[in-house]
């Protein structure tokens, strides 16, 4: 197997007496070749939990994660060091990653020191500056400043500069741009694309914002309440969504065109979740919001299977 990352039947249950299944039988693989993989879902869909499991911050209750064919729970110290270098995370809140009492420089110097990337002061200085330029930042604007003196977009891009320094193989970007405004998003996404093309860095891009995933392309998984409801090439899935939830997501992206406004008002049941959370998971979890709901939806859990339309496309819905 020549996969970079293999996630197999991942499951995560929280709580002991009342349980919440945050992740339910999620499998996917990312190839060795540099690629983008999108994980899309609303809050509570389990996407952040998956990120945490892959980063080794949390032990799954079921399934396992292989990185380069080795379980990420490996006890091998050397392997772990390598893993932590090759897999880097960018989180939602760029501020909380920084220690407010240190200058931004420290964030960039630490990996150089930790992974012994340079031999001289001069060399590390040059490396930092070139990394900053690679993420569209002027070194003079950033170096010597404290985190609070930077904008959210700048802070997020400093994290990317850090990644540029480390040159990992995989970036886990968890809601990395949800707190950055529209203008800053494009720069960030372009950097990710550059990384893939020029530096062979893959990205696992986790978001609730389908439009950014759309922009990045690659593969996509749509999650709903911990389960995969649709998977495939991003282009295919966004152009021709099969699952009613995926369809709803695509339709809800506000089109930047005043002539293409939403036609009808969204029924309330499709928008909001009920106050009462069902504990019965042997069914389609989207049933209560689904406009095409059938009896079968309440009774059996739809399996993820190949879509009739396209070979690369998978969907978990009783309609197909």
């Amino acid at each position: 197997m020549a996969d970079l990352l293999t996630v197999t039947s991942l499951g995560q249950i929280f709580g002991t007496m009342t349980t919440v299944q945050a992740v339910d039988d999620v499998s996917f693989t990312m190839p060795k070749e540099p690629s983008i993989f999108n994980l899309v879902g609303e809050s509570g869909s389990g996407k952040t939990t998956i990120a945490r499991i892959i980063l080794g911050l949390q032990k799954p209750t079921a399934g396992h994660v292989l990185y380069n064919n080795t379980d990420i729970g490996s006890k091998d110290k050397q392997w772990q060091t390598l893993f932590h270098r090759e897999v880097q995370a960018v989180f939602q809140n760029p501020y909380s990653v920084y220690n407010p009492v240190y200058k931004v420089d420290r964030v960039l110097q630490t990996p150089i020191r930790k992974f012994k990337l340079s031999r001289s002061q001069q060399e590390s200085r040059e490396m930092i500056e070139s990394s900053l330029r690679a993420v569209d930042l002027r070194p003079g604007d950033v170096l010597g400043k404290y985190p609070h003196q930077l904008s959210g977009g700048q802070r997020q891009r400093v994290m990317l500069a850090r990644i540029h320094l480390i040159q990992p193989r995989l970036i886990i970007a968890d809601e990395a741009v949800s707190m950055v405004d529209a203008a800053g998003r494009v720069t960030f996404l372009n950097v990710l694309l550059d990384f893939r093309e020029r530096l062979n860095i893959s990205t696992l891009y986790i978001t609730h914002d389908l439009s950014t995933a759309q922009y990045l392309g690659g593969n996509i998984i749509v999650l709903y309440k911990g389960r995969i409801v649709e998977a495939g090439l991003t282009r295919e899935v966004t152009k021709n969504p099969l699952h009613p939830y995926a369809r709803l997501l695509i339709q809800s992206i506000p089109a930047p065109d005043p002539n293409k406004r939403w036609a009808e008002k969204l029924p309330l049941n499709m928008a909001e979740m009920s106050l009462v959370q069902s504990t019965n998971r042997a069914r389609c979890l989207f049933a209560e919001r689904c406009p095409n709901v059938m009896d079968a939806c309440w009774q059996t859990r739809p399996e993820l299977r190949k879509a009739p339309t396209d070979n690369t496309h998978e969907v978990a819905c009783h309609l197909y």
Partner: protein
Amino acid sequence: MTQDTPQEAVLAIRSLSVVYVGRRSAAQAVTEVDLEVQNNEILGLVGESGCGKTTLAVAMLGLIEPPGKVIGGAVQIRTHDHSTQDILKVKPSLHRQLLWKEIAYIPQGSMSALNPVKRVREQLTDTLIEHGLKKNEALERARWALQVVSLDAAILERYPHELSGGMVQRVAIAGAISMQPPVLVADEPTTALDVVTQRSILQELVSIREKFGSAILLISHDMGVMAQIADRIAVMYAGRIVEIGSIHQVFASPLHPYTKKLINAIPNARGRESGERLIGLGGESPNIWRHPPGCRFHPRCEFAIERCSQQAPVFTSPNGSSGQRVACHLY
């Protein structure tokens, strides 16, 4: 729905300037902003973070607190009884009455907008009671308002953490409309929500406008959101309004280079399919403590001419029509 015919604005911001007073200098957060919102209109206010949108919203409500300071201008609202009041000038007790009754605020729909230790009922009724309603009237009104935003009255007895983000946002909207104010100010009302919920909330705002004819000032950084529901749009850059016009005009023919960039920077599938990259804004967002002289956008502007760095542009209507105006030396 564009109103080309002049009409008396229900909310008129006149030459409003707000600064933040630092230890040695003052930051110009909002500079000489003029805006009018008409009845039954959704006016979108768009700009990058740090451009002064939120400061403007807070100033509109007359709630600027130190170190912020309003150094000039007026915020006039036409009240239910057809008088005009300047929010910045009225005495505190009247100010509090005007808030909510005449101009209500819809916060960002996160949990933190509501007091975590009080039930929804208390948070809705306390405001109503302070605005002169009796206890049972207030409760009745709260029920009604929740119904308007399609929420079950059972929500009244819940605490904020028991609700989903969309519900909290609806509660906030319900609160804002409970006194049927002529003006609603919604500050990034959908930023923290997923797209489906965002859509339902935005549609809720539209239907509120339809039901009550309220004027809504919608603040967002998302051009997509604007395109979906705004009637008119004002683009703000570095504390100034740089372009204003009907949504159709602005999207069809953006005038200001900044507006153009904003529209081009919306991520979607279109650009990528053709293999193109979207172009970001380039350069850094403005630093309110050190605005460049002249047109504040000129350091990032590819069309900048010498004049741009010397003289601040004034509004013109290059298309001839009354609707679209721009502050740019190119026109």
